[in-house]
């Protein structure tokens, strides 16, 4: 009878524990997810943009050759393809193509010299604008100018090498799945650093070997899945959310305990946006533990205190025991 009651109480306790733990878990996540960008967005310039997408959204486009007097099919140069769906999910989805590109493009065939048009950079539109003040574009620009990427400006490096104007979308502020953000952000780097045809546009080096260069890093795959390249390759700036000062490779973070420690670097980088919502329960780096597991950054204040008290008690007992052994022996 008693055993049955004990089993019942144990069972109920386990259920209550799992509910309370699951409940807390929800609390740690963002309370209200941002409305997701979807392709259901209808641009006020949809019809205007369609004039461009009609050809630029396709690998094969078709036009009327008035000299020959017939329809011609042609391949679109891959760098000139703009995915319509991705554009309407991107940060610039509300734009008309001719907001950034010359009105002259509305004519076909396009005039050859249009290719030489000056292309805007982020700061040209976002600089000095109150609406974008919270993003600190001026600070981003200043950081970029100190980064190794800026040295390649003459060779053609620009904001667009990382932030595709037609598909870039802000990720770290809107994420509901951090791993996806990490993948998205790392793919920005890998677009050049793991793609030789893109890489050689800006570099004379004859090969790229990310995996080989990171051979020293234990559990490479786990690191790539759990942190962004910029965690180690950029300098932290408290003003902006994502550091843009990419450092020379010699200055990259190489000491494990920069992240694997109580005051982990990751709290100022990857988890910066969330760190305001500090998870309690005594974990020093609670936000990191919501998403990941980092040796050294997983210390818990309460467990630390309990372990110290138990250790002190054991040493005290041994001390008292030794004292009595010595004094009794003398008696």
């Amino acid at each position, binding site marked *: 009878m008693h055993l049955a009651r004990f089993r019942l109480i144990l069972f109920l306790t386990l259920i209550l524990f799992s509910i309370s733990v699951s409940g807390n878990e929800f609390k740690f996540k963002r309370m209200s997810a941002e409305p997701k960008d979807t392709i259901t967005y209808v641009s006020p310039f949809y019809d205007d943009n369609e004039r461009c997408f009609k050809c630029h959204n396709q690998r094969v486009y078709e036009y009327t050759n008035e000299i020959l007097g017939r329809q011609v099919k042609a391949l679109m140069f891959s760098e000139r393809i703009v995915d319509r769906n991705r554009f309407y999910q991107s940060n610039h989805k509300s734009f008309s193509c001719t907001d950034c590109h010359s009105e002259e493009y509305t004519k076909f065939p396009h005039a050859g010299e249009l290719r030489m048009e000056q292309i805007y950079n982020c700061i040209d539109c976002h600089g000095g604008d109150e609406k974008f003040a919270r993003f600190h574009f001026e600070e981003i620009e200043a950081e970029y100018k100190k980064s190794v990427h800026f040295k390649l400006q003459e060779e053609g490096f620009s904001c667009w090498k990382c932030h595709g104007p037609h598909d870039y979308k802000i990720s770290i502020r809107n994420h509901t799945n951090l791993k996806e953000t990490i993948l998205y952000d790392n793919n920005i780097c890998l677009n050049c650093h793991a793609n030789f045809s893109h890489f050689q546009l800006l570099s004379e080096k004859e090969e790229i070997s990310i995996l080989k260069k990171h051979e020293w890093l234990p*559990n490479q795959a786990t690191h790539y899945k759990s942190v962004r390249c910029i965690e180690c390759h950029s300098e932290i700036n408290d003003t902006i959310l994502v550091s843009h000062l990419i450092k020379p490779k010699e200055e990259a973070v190489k000491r*494990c*305990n920069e992240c694997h420690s109580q005051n982990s670097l990751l709290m100022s980088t990857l988890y910066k946006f969330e760190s305001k919502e500090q998870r309690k329960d005594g974990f020093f780096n609670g936000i990191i533990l919501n998403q990941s597991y980092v040796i050294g950054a997983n210390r818990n204040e309460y467990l630390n205190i309990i372990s110290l008290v138990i250790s002190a008690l*054991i040493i005290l007992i041994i001390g008292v025991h030794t004292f009595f052994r010595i004094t009794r022996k003398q008696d």
Partner: protein
Amino acid sequence: MYLYPIWVRLWHTFNAILFLILIVTGISMQYTGKSDYVLVVGFAKAVKWHNIAAMLLTLNYIFFIAGNILSGNGRFYRITKKNFLSDLAKQFKYYSLGMFKGEKHPFPVTMDRKFNPLQKLTYILSMYVAFPLLIISGFGLLFPETVINRFLGISGMILTDILHITMGFFLSLFMIIHIYTCTLGAKPASLFKSMLSGYHESEDQ
């Protein structure tokens, strides 16, 4: 009397050395600071040596289990339900009071009784409960892909980690107490000598 055969002594020595390495490297990892290292081992070295020592310790543990089964050494760990709690109390009373009054050891070591009841309980808890949990959780931390993502709403890795550090902590405490209780032999150094020679010196001579 010859109580500790060579394989037990070898296992015990390796176990002690490896466990010390694991304690030092484990503390180095758990309490590493951003600018200074706890103890003397750097994080990267600590991870490497912790992994190596842990794998060797696991092999040594398998050797211990196999040895216990094959040689019959396992019988010394067997607890009989009858009088166990009262025997445990007797032994506890001896350590806390009796030994200071010059009382005789309630469970002197014989060829058939290597461990007193308190030893049996702590050895079983440490070698057959904490040790396997430590090895299994350590395996999970070494191969994170084998750990379930979430359990009762909590990250599986965090639970594995907490289990690992808690077991590591208790076994470290066991080691401290074990070393101290080893000074409670016939003479303070007797039991340490036994572990080298294999011969046990009786407490009640």
